[in-house]
């Protein structure tokens, strides 16, 4: 039986061999056929020579999580043949270069063997050794187009537009693609019974990664200062901000830039610059990952206590610094939530799609200026660095930025006495002034140590504790401002909570569980502090699972701390291997719990 638009293909390559662009074209061509696509780059912390894998999952059912058994493997790295062959599901296809025959290690009788003499095909066609290497990738791309029935005009069109201006490259690329394609048509069974066809499902969507989306959100959100220090997987946030701001924010008449990007000397300085700019009334942000957050701790406390807006993007990765910088995790929650010494708490946003990276990025500046405190957007490597099908970005013209409580010259003229930390509105948020506003009113001294409501230095215990209590009132205001959870409820007894990229395999998990007679209500957490709906959801389900990609159940700790929830109310499903979490993992964990606790299923499942 032929299946369409529903498979996982993995390309095994050597880092730095030029495969990235061919693999990218492969994924994009499917997207351009209207098929929902998600990609996953599994790469080492290295520039050249080590194994990398590029996984493409296409699914009309919305199943985009990592899968543990691969349908099609394009094995281009001799070093990893064995493991690459091992991860194919029975009946899967193995595509490989058989110029030197088929290695013994590839013997598996339950898979389909698709050998293509790529090296041999290339040899007579190209003389330059660099081209020979590069075009191997293009040859398999061409072969795959035949084997999967990819619209070839889309591929050739992509080559032409990619090399626009470098016309000399267009012909050889298309030629290399044709070599692979013609070989496949001539000698192989084309197409596979697992193939693609045009679809409408991705129509109107975009194909983008989370970091670039966040960067564009920062441009739209009015960020003018970006200070950062390079660290995988966050680097592309700052780089994309600069790229898009250059295009969208350069004054066409003067050539001046309505933004500034500073590559700081370290993460301490990066956040220091953001805080300086925020203090001075500019929208500023930094992008980093766990090790950077560690370095930013002292400054985060200062910003919390001095009440200065700052936006941070934490693109999480597996810790520690020298660990697995190119692997994904959701393991910075606790270190961000309570970053710094003393009593501190920082609000977090948890995007789970590129569109949400854009939305949260722009919203975070409004929230941060409104609450006069840092806001951290918690993405991760999986979302940040992989292109996937997403809803397009949208923006309502006329939308005003919420600059929060900032007093203008006129406000100060009319005011009696200015008190920076006076809670006159009862929401825990005082009014601030920007330096230089008024000759005689509204100036104050910002400090990280204690002061009274009028920003005057004091070490009086009452002043200190009153200030801390006001910050708790502010926390409750923040709770109301944060985006609410996304809930799907159908009165089931059991529910499952998740956040960030654990949402990616959720549709597939729920579909698989349904097959097993298990139906779950769902709640996707989108922010910390939590809305009341999280409390209600937990209280109204007798069994509650919480999926996380860390070892210590960090979100659970936050829920138990921030809400009135007993730890026993939540069963954790924890994955922390550094790959993105798969539906198989979630389903197994849920079913195990059902077995162990003899939980009732909705239907008997015939086995």
């Amino acid at each position: 039986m032929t299946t369409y638009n529903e498979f996982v293909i993995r390309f095994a390559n050597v880092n730095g061999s030029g495969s990235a662009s061919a693999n990218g074209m492969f994924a994009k061509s499917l997207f351009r056929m209207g098929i929902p696509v998600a990609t996953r780059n599994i790469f080492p912390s290295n520039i050249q020579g080590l194994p990398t894998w590029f996984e493409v999952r296409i699914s009309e059912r919305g199943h985009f999580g990592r899968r543990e058994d691969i349908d099609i493997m394009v094995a281009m790295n001799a070093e990893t043949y064995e493991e690459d062959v091992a991860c194919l599901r029975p009946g899967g296809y193995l595509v490989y270069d058989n110029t030197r025959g088929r290695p013994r290690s590839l013997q598996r009788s339950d898979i389909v063997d698709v050998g293509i003499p790529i090296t041999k095909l290339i040899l007579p066609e190209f003389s330059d050794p660099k081209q020979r290497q590069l075009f191997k990738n293009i040859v398999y791309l061409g072969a795959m187009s035949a084997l999967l029935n990819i619209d070839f005009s889309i591929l050739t069109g992509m080559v032409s537009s990619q090399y626009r201006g470098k016309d000399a490259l267009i012909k050889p690329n298309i030629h290399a693609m044709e070599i692979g394609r013609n070989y496949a048509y001539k000698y192989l069974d084309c197409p596979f019974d697992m193939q693609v066809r045009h679809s409408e499902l991705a129509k109107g969507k975009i194909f983008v990664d989370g970091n670039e989306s966040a960067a564009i959100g920062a441009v739209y959100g009015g960020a003018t200062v970006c200070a950062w220090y390079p660290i995988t997987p966050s680097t592309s946030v700052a780089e994309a901000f600069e790229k898009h701001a250059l295009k969208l924010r350069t004054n066409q008449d003067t050539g001046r830039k309505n933004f500034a990007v500073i590559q700081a000397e370290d993460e301490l300085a990066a956040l220091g610059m953001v805080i300086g700019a925020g203090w001075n009334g500019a929208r500023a942000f930094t992008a980093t990952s766990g090790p950077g957050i560690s370095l930013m701790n002292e400054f985060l406390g200062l910003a919390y206590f001095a009440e200065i807006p700052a936006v941070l993007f934490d693109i999480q990765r597996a810790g520690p610094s020298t660990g697995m910088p190119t692997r994904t995790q959701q393991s910075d929650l606790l270190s961000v939530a309570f970053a710094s010494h003393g009593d501190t708490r920082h609000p977090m946003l948890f995007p789970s799609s590129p569109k949400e990276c854009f939305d949260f990025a722009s919203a975070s500046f409004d929230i941060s200026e409104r609450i006069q405190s840092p806001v951290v957007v918690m993405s991760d490597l999986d979302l940040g660095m992989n292109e996937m099908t997403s809803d397009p970005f949208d923006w309502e013209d006329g939308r005003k930025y919420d600059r929060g409580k900032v007093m203008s010259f006129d406000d100060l003229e009319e005011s009696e006495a200015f008190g920076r930390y006076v809670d006159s509105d009862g929401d825990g948020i005082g009014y601030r002034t920007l330096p230089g506003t008024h000759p005689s009113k509204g100036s104050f001294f910002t400090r990280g140590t204690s002061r009274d409501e009028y920003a005057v230095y004091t070490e009086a215990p009452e002043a200190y504790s009153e200030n801390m209590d006001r910050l708790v009132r502010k926390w409750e205001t923040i709770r109301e401002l944060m985006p609410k959870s996304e809930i799907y409820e159908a009165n089931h007894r059991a529910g499952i909570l998740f956040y960030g990229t654990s949402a990616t395999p959720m549709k597939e998990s729920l579909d698989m569980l349904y097959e097993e007679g298990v139906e779950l209500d769902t709640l996707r957490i989108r922010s910390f502090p939590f809305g009341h709906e999280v409390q209600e959801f937990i209280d109204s389900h007798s069994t509650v699972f919480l999926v996380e990609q860390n070892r210590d159940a960090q979100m659970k700790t936050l829920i138990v701390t921030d809400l009135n929830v007993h730890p026993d109310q939540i069963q954790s499903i924890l994955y922390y291997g550094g790959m993105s979490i798969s539906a198989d993992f979630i389903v197994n964990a849920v079913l195990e719990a059902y077995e162990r606790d003899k939980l009732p299923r909705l239907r008997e499942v015939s086995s």
Partner: protein
Amino acid sequence: MTFVAKPKIHHPLLKVNEIGLKRRDYEGLVSTLCAGCGHDSVSAALIQACSELSLPPHKFAKLSGIGCSSKTPSYFLGNSHGFNSVHGRMPSVATGANIANRDLIYIGVSGDGDSASIGLGQFAHAVRRKINMLYIVDNNGTYGLTKGQFSATNDRGSTNKRGVPNLYTSIDLVSMALQIGASFVARSFSGDKTQLVPLMKAALLHRGFAFIDVISPCVMFNNHDGSTKSYGYIRDHSAPVVDADFIAPQEEIEIYYAPGTAETVAMPDGSSLRLRKLEDSYNPRNRVDALAYVQNALDEGEVVTGLLYVEDDSVDCHEVLETPDVPLNSLDESVLCPGSAELAAVNDSFR
């Protein structure tokens, strides 16, 4: 507790400057530092410099790190915003603030612990980024606020209050600033207002990173015989250079001594400092010579004071970053938000 010079006598403190303000309008809170602390003299000099330049007090932004020195922004320019940030990190906060609003006048006050130890990296990078600011280090060779540990500017062999010698080479921030590209580099002595005030005025009018290393004795922990940052030691070892022809963009900085003459300067503690001006041949426009000059003097145990280097066509960070003439913090959504039509094009680029 000392008081930063409060106006008791009528002239010149009650004189009104060009914008109708008195010296008092440039003052801050009463200092809580130790009586005789050099840092208070630095604040007093700043007050004088700012008022004499007739700059509007609320257009200053004062930033500091942590330390006795970093407390001083409370004690001058009471009508301007101040930011007492974290230890050693004032340069980054000042950088961000400056990028956000290029229209203010930035004064950073730091200590030698703050800038030469914990914040050495941030200091260096603020210099090389050409942040348009006056950066003052109240240099006492010790950690005042944590009670007398050696700082990195303390000279090797110099002893602390208990007689224990410092075993490590000192860092000379002036040499560093010269080497990394500060466009205005000077050194002075807190007790030498005659030299310090004109230097501060020139620095405030300078575009780019203006650095003044002010030797500022800590009377609590570093004013004993074995210390090379004491009043006594500096008095005996200072070798001032005064730039004879520095012309500020708006105003000529007064020249105090003729070449080859000597001047006796009254000190806050009642003593006096004898400054000797070097020959006219000292040229403050040559970075390499300035560096050699400072280093040679240091080798001979002499502290060179005065304007050591100034760049005439200096640039600041905003030219490097190509930011607009108006401050970034004044831009609103009408300029910053590209709007939905542009976003449609952005979306298309991902298809």
